[in-house]
């Protein structure tokens, strides 16, 4: 269970996130949407410990975790992908995904041949196969096209066997076809017990994946609920389509 209580974060004079209250029960899937600059990535940065909050608190399974060093967040079971892709370009796909396992229990810093290490590497190969990356396993990750690179990011996050998975624009830069494929992969590969938060621009991906959605605007949460309801909310329409948009007709939006 993840809980954010009146979380606030400022950059210079601007409040990137303002008094955010959010509760995500275990195994839940929450979509985080909003226009550019609404603070979505900052929220992920706060939840993954990359950035410290200025006010408020973050609780994970009852314990307060804000203020801990970043690597402790990861060890508590938080894994994430990055909007701008953080892959090590000259390393192969496999090597990039192996990075995720460095701090998992049983990881051996010095020996490759232990049972745990062999099992871990097999698990990575399984993941890569599920993600359709088998042929690229030993290719330098810089050689892959963007959609495949995003899958590597996803593989790396999944390889951490997280309890809380944060995806930052997992379909960024993809065509509708690629987005659909990504959505299917996420739905299939994220185990049900894992709590999932997805930040996305693409309303269709979020709406299909997440039974609940929260909308941010200038750092504040302005709506939360089922995608259909939220997307027909007046305030939400205003921020996405502008004030002059007429009253919503049932046009199959969402």
């Amino acid at each position, binding site marked *: 269970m993840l809980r954010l209580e009146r979380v606030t974060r400022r950059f210079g004079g601007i409040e990137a996130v303002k008094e955010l209250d959010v509760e995500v029960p275990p195994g839940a899937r929450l979509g985080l949407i909003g226009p550019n600059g609404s603070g979505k990535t900052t929220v992920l940065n706060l939840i*993954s*410990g*990359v950035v410290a909050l200025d006010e408020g608190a973050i609780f994970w399974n009852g314990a307060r975790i804000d203020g801990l*060093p*970043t*690597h402790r*967040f*990861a*060890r508590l079971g938080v*894994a*994430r992908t990055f909007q701008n892709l*953080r892959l*090590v370009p*000259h*390393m192969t796909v496999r*090597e990039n995904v*192996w*990075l*995720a*396992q*460095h*701090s*998992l229990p049983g*990881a*051996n*810093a*010095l*020996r*490759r041949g232990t049972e745990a290490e062999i099992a871990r590497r097999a698990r990575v190969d399984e993941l890569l196969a599920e993600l359709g990356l088998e042929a690229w396993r030993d290719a*330098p990750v810089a050689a892959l096209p963007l959609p495949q690179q995003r899958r590597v990011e996803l593989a790396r996050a999944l390889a*951490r066997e997280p309890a809380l998975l944060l995806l930052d624009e997992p379909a960024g830069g993809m065509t509708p076809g690629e987005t659909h494929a990504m959505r299917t992969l996420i739905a299939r590969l994220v185990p049900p017990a894992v709590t999932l938060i997805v930040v996305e621009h693409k309303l269709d991906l979020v709406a299909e994946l997440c039974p609940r959605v929260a909308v941010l605007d200038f750092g504040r949460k302005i709506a939360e609920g089922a995608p259909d309801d939220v997307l027909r909310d007046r305030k939400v329409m205003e921020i996405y389509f502008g004030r002059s948009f007429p009253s919503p007709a049932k046009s199959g939006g969402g």
Partner: protein
Amino acid sequence: MDDYLVSVLANIGMFSFIALSAYLLLLTGEISFGQQAFFAIGAYASGIATALWGLPFALALLIGAAAGGIAAGLVGLLTLRTRGLYFAMATLAFAELVRLGLQQWVYVRKIEGEPVGPNGVDGFRGIRYVFENNIAPAEFLLIIAGLLVFVLAAFAVAERGRLGSMLRLVGADPLLAESQGIDVKAVKVAAAAAAGAVAALGGCLFAHLNTFVEPRNFDIMLGVHSLAYGLIGGLGTAFGPILGVLIDVGLLESVRVFQGYRMIVFGGLVALLLVFMPRGILDETRLRWLAARLRRAPQHHAQA
């Protein structure tokens, strides 16, 4: 083996230690101009151990390495918040402070009627362990080689396992490393301590082979050279810095033709090299390419 060759090989061996030391720090993303400080600490500590306290050489090596490692760990802790260029300068400042300190420090005792020990600016005379124990230079060379092989083996084990890629990740993308659960600060301090110990080992050998060391031996030039070795030889493997030392000490010492123009030629070559290979000869990319070629080669033979 002729004496000159032995001495050249010995120098290659000893400077490899400090080159490896700078390389280890470079892997974790830190530029250090100051590894000569730990080389010096190792030299003086081990010299005191054998010449003033009469301890056996093996113990002196341990003491020297430990002294270097602890000092380096402390500096690493102090400079945790200091990054990039600032870190480089902090290491330089520390190294100069050590050198200046050694210029002032006097710890001399009469051993068998002779004054022995660090004597400020005049240096540390009388590290006569090799003479007193009849160790010929060629034999000492074996000791140097043995220790170097040991250190290289340690690097090799680290590179094969997760430790190598963990270190390199910390250097390449510390934020990513943190988000994978790696305690970047702890890794950096540990790497700093290990690097200090390795440099100190080199210093121990240096002091005992030369029987005399002075603060002047451990100046900024030594520090910048050690950094350069890794850059020239390549940062993809621990053999890179060794290659760098080989090229500088080995090749140029022997090529007498360039007497007097040595630095002009060498400097020019290094500058040109770095234009085309900014991460050195044996850098990560080239090594991968080599590894891929080698993996494919047996198949070629099978098909032919």
